[in-house]
């Protein structure tokens, strides 16, 4: 690496690390997300605990600004034999729909439930209310009443498990290990890892390469680039930028992961991990040590591949409006494996997942999906990485060539047939 490479690297690192957008995305955004997640999950946890119809009604009432004081129901299914004493003042039984609706019209109740005769087969409940309401919360009082009725003879924890069966899923995820999974795992933690990887990769790619594009296009727009490439080899200029942005991207990911770990630790300390879905799940995921270098390799190579693509786009774009539009040409195919997630779930070693994990542009996302659900032969991983690495070298070379002359273009986007000339310089 030449002196100029490191000068560019240091300058771009310092300059972009001070961007408000970068600082916000690296530190403030994950904190805000975690705080939001905690707030949401805390509310959810409290609501789940409120299984009593009266308590549920209070929660619903709070949602409606305290206006909900009484509800009525007619039960054609015959399931609800009796209304518990503590809920009787709130949940009033009516014998006919007309009686309930009359009470509703008179303002004696604020919501009226009609439990249909075929409820056991269809689960049909009709909710009648004077104005539009929040359906999900609105149904909780009658659902609680029905659950109480149906679990009347079930005791203790069993009854609680019936009322809150989703906790079972969290418990099962405790042993999820990425890289040694079975296809069942895609329902849980490994599936989440795929999305964490996808989101991290995508955000990191878009943000840091977006900054790189911004600096290159700024240098083009201001024509400073001509002074720069009269001094610095285009490869050094581009390389310094790419390394600086890559490090910033990596640091951003580390910041996000650290925030997540902090959140998990906090959640554990506060006892929330059991109930806070996403955090609880992440806390229980283990990544096999053998798979970690593979993940890192895909991450780095994917970053470099897209840095090359973005460099080409920057060199031939004339403004910050144009650049991101052309970037879609590369980002959409990269995300393609996510559209075929069904194929990865049902047959992760099938033709389509295998092909997508070998094609360099789709390989990072495809291989991580396969690794999440099955064991991929090491040779396939090696071939995939080798193809990706070779493509990175080719794209970087091409980017260097196009960058050299492309950055001098002003005003007109080069046509497709101009590209060979740009490559020749």
């Amino acid at each position, binding site marked *: 690496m030449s002196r100029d490479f490191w000068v560019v690297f240091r300058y771009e690192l310092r300059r972009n690390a001070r961007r408000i957008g970068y600082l916000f995305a690296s530190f403030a955004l994950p904190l805000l997300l975690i705080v939001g997640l905690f707030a949401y999950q805390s509310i959810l946890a409290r609501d789940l605990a409120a299984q009593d119809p009266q308590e549920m009604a209070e929660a619903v009432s709070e949602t409606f600004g305290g206006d909900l004081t009484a509800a009525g129901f007619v039960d054609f299914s015959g399931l609800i034999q009796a209304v518990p004493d503590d809920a009787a003042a709130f949940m009033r039984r009516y014998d006919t729909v007309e009686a309930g609706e009359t009470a509703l019209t008179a303002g004696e109740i604020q919501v009226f439930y009609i439990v249909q005769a075929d409820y056991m087969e269809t689960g049909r409940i009709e909710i009648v209310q004077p104005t539009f309401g929040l359906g999900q919360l609105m149904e909780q009082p009658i659902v609680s009443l029905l659950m109480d009725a149906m679990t009347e003879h079930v005791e203790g924890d069993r009854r609680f498990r019936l009322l809150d069966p989703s906790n079972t899923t969290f418990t099962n995820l405790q042993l999820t290990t990425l890289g040694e999974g079975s296809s069942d795992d895609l329902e849980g933690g490994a599936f989440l890892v795929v999305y964490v990887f996808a989101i991290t990769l995508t955000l990191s790619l878009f943000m840091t390469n977006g900054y790189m594009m911004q600096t290159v296009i700024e240098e083009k727009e*201001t024509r400073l680039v001509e002074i720069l490439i009269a001094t*610095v080899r285009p490869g050094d200029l581009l390389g310094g930028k790419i390394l600086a942005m890559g490090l910033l991207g990596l640091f951003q990911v580390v910041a996000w992961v650290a925030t997540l770990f902090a959140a998990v630790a906090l959640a554990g300390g506060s006892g929330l991990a059991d109930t806070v879905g996403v955090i609880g799940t992440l806390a229980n995921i283990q990544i096999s040590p053998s798979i970690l270098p593979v993940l890192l390799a895909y991450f780095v190579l994917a970053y470099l591949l897209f840095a090359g693509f973005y460099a080409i786009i920057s060199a031939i774009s004339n403004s910050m409006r144009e650049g991101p539009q052309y970037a879609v040409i590369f980002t959409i195919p990269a995300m393609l494996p996510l559209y075929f997630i069904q194929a990865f779930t049902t047959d992760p070693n099938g033709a389509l997942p295998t092909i997508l994990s070998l094609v360099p542009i789709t390989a990072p996302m495809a291989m991580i999906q396969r690794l999440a659900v099955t064991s991929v032969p090491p040779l396939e991983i090696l071939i995939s990485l080798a193809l990706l690495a070779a493509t990175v070298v080719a794209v970087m070379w091409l980017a260097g060539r196009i960058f050299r002359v492309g950055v001098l273009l002003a005003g007109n986007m080069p046509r497709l047939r101009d590209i060979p000339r740009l490559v020749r310089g």
Partner: protein
Amino acid sequence: MNHRTAVTVEHISKSYGSFQAVSDLSFEVFTGEIFALLGPNGAGKSTTIRMILDILKPDTGKIAVLGAPLNDQAKDRIGYLPEERGLYRGVPVLEMMVYLGSLKGMSASAARRGSMALLERLELAEHARKKVSELSKGMQQKVQFAVTVLHDPDLIIIDEPFSGLDPVNTLVVKDLLLDFAKRGKGVIMSTHQMHQIEEMADRLLMIDKGRQALYGTVEEVRQGFALPAVRVEGKGDWASIKAVDHIEMPENGRGEVVLYLKPAATPDMVLGEIASRSDLFIRSFELAVPSLSEIFVAVVQNRPNGKRNGNA
């Protein structure tokens, strides 16, 4: 003048597709001189400069800069200011200058010291910590010039150095460029301000349609276009002079008259007759050598109105 060569260009050509931007161009730039590169828009000046700087590769021909084909070390000894230029708008002036100085091999502290000294000389020191976007256009222009010469280059290539500058700052930049030449640096200056070339340049190259149109010292080029005429200011019946064939009165408001000489007549003969006659009075008398501006127009319009310089 020290006649070591700063740039040697030998038979370079460059085409973009079917468009021939530069064709078989050769010239030399010496150290310690101001060399003017001129030509109409699209003549191939920028392409030539970019080839000298190795930004573009010539299709054919050779270029040597500071004694050898351009290499990384030689690049550090060049200061380049293109016509379309800019700066990082959101970056403080000093920080940007230190960065660009570092790219030329200066240490950060040397770049900082050099930047402050230059900014002082250009009366911009108080703006050193301001963002470029907060400066006026003229100030930005001076900062661009400062960036170009910050590392005390041995070769300065500067396109339209006076564009956007007021007369006072034009003088400051002019003095700096003359000072660089005096200190043995090579200066290649491309400009359309012909009077600046006449005042500053030692030699010039005019390119037209990618080819060499004129090449030589400014004086040689002007003499090469000298007319068989003299330019006088004064009073009298100029047509009555025996050596005069016909007269022209340029509409320049200065009351000048151009006296075209008969074949075999000389300016001395005209001056002698004016001196011997009491009805003719002159305030000024000079050979009718066209200005560079007139030569430029004549060459571009392909209307040579005098003998061409031998080198041209």
